[in-house]
């Protein structure tokens, strides 16, 4: 189960900036080191809890699911995670 994060560049080209895969209960990355390092450090938002919180790769599937709601600006876009793959 994996999510790809695309970065939009000039001239409509898109590159995969990171691939996020669930290995065991943790998300591991391949790709741009600076991006991945920041993502590991900063985390992403999980609005499904009250109060909302930050989640990190160690949170596993929840983190993987949250990528789509985080990267939706067009400049960075996370691919959908098929629900049936979880």
């Amino acid at each position, binding site marked *: 189960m994996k999510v790809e994060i695309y970065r939009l560049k000039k001239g409509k080209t898109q590159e995969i900036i990171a691939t996020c895969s669930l290995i065991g209960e943790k998300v591991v990355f391949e790709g741009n080191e600076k991006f991945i390092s920041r993502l590991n450090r900063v985390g992403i*938002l999980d609005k499904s809890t009250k109060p909302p919180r930050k989640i990190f790769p160690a949170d596993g599937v929840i983190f993987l699911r949250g990528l789509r709601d985080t990267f939706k600006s067009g400049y*960075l876009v996370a691919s959908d995670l098929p629900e049936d793959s979880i």
Partner: protein
Amino acid sequence: MNEGKTALVEQQHYLYKPTSREIDLQNKETSGLQRIKGSPRIWYIDIEGDGAGIFKLHRYSDTQNERAAYIISKIVGFDFVPPTVLRKINGEEGSLQEFVEDGKFMDEVEQSEKVKKGLYKYWIFGHIIRNMERSDWNLLVKEDKVFSIDHDASFDPDFANPANFDLFRQYYGEEAPNELIETFKFYLGDRSRQETLKSTLQELLSPEDVEITTQRLEHIGNLLVKNGKINSQTELTI
């Protein structure tokens, strides 16, 4: 003049006048439509003879929030949301936002003083539009200027606790940039600007959201003008 006519004159007085760029985005032919890999919800679009845009489909997200965030940024004077309009393209309703060519992410730039000031502004903006997603991923930096992007999840109804908007950055106790204080002074001293904002937002948001947003603008603006900083989350509780 009778009452009806007076009301009409007042209303006209507070009409928002779109910029030439907004008019272009609204009316120019588009081409080269390309669905962005990874998502069926977003298209990249060429604008006739002049740049490109990010088109978000309304059936997947609250695109009117994208326009509302732009309007707030423009009228109040933040001036850091790329021009954004609502329009129909290829039969789809959505928001079209000017593409920031060569925009960089936080992991790609040095944090200059100007960028740091932009980040403070970005933090305050998140509180005003009630957007919890003000992470490093929803801002771009170009020539030291910070741009705020991706506002469809704004005007969050679950907004009572300021901590919700502090998850990615907070600057309590730190002096606000002078430009931001001046921006608020100008806005708070200009009734016409305030009324124009209100009437324009009324076309995009619920009456309750317009009320909450304008209240927050006034409250946060007054704090910054009076104290030059925000001291605590408690101060931001309205």
